[in-house]
């Protein structure tokens, strides 16, 4: 027959059905013969049942209200998803356009060129400095 120490160790892992002492097992035979281990097994059964009750307690939230909210929020989620998909081509086009507009012309060296002093032109209005920019279509004329 199982010793009490072995029975207490087995109690820790046994299936709930085995704890009532009705099963045909060494643990069940011990529980039928030993009141102290029987009491420990009963305590496990009672506390497990209490935990089960706690988790399942209380009425569920009203079903009709929950379904109405699910429909409304589900429809809103679908609208948001459709709007995101609709906006995707526009965002992609904007991204491509941005890349094309900011890309330097072909053949432009990647490293910055050494600074070149602006050419100075003497005119009747005074001296004029002409600055070029990275963008070949933009030139800054400075009169002083």
């Amino acid at each position, binding site marked *: 027959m199982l010793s009490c120490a072995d029975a207490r160790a087995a109690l820790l892992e046994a299936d709930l059905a085995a704890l009532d002492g009705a099963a045909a097992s060494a643990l069940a035979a011990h529980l039928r013969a030993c009141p102290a281990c029987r009491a420990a097994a009963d305590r496990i059964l009672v506390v*497990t049942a209490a935990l*089960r009750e*706690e988790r*399942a307690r209380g009425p*569920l939230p009203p*079903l009709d209200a*929950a379904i109405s*909210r699910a429909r409304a929020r589900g429809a809103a989620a679908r609208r948001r998803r459709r709007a995101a998909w609709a906006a995707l081509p526009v965002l992609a086009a904007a991204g491509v356009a941005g890349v094309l507009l900011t890309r330097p012309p072909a053949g432009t060296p990647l490293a910055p060129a050494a600074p070149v002093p602006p050419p100075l032109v003497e005119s009747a209005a005074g001296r004029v400095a002409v600055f070029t920019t990275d963008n070949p279509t933009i030139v800054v004329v400075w009169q002083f």
Partner: protein
Amino acid sequence: MAPGDQPLDADLIRRARAGEEAAFRLLVERWYARIHRWAAGVLGDADDADDVTQDVLVRLHVRLDRFREESAFSTWLFQITRNAARDAYRRRRRRLRAWTRLRGMAEAHDVAPDPATALEERDAAGAARAALAGLPDRQREVFDLVDLQGYAPHEAADLLGLSPGTVRTHLFRARAAVRRALLAAEPSFAEDRSC
């Protein structure tokens, strides 16, 4: 339809996908309590499961089109519920950590435990509850499904996508932790090692 002749889930899903609201309602009605209970299992609290259950219904409404009948509907729905509950659990933990930090700053010198909580944790159910809450997620889920919800270990394995052997390992570890804690909370069981 004859009395007791319930439509199958697959039929309800097909009709709900086609936009038949009555079929969606029937489907939800059939699974509502289980969704709530699954959520409570992950969260450890029936009250917290209300919000998650609502969230799952929204996800079900939006994603029903995506259900492929490669897996059982119960497994698919369980995964949706589990993900929603775990999201909620993580949010709750973040809030709790923030609250604990604030409380720690405000009450740096007040470290005495709440007497009511201390008393509850000394009782066997309180000790078991605390041990259950402290288990790793997988162990807690398996314990809840098998010992608290009554699923067979192989059914829990299907729902969780684990092998039956892995489920049994988690189950034994969880049981041992919870039962050891509840027996230790009562001196008559903790000290009476020989009989």
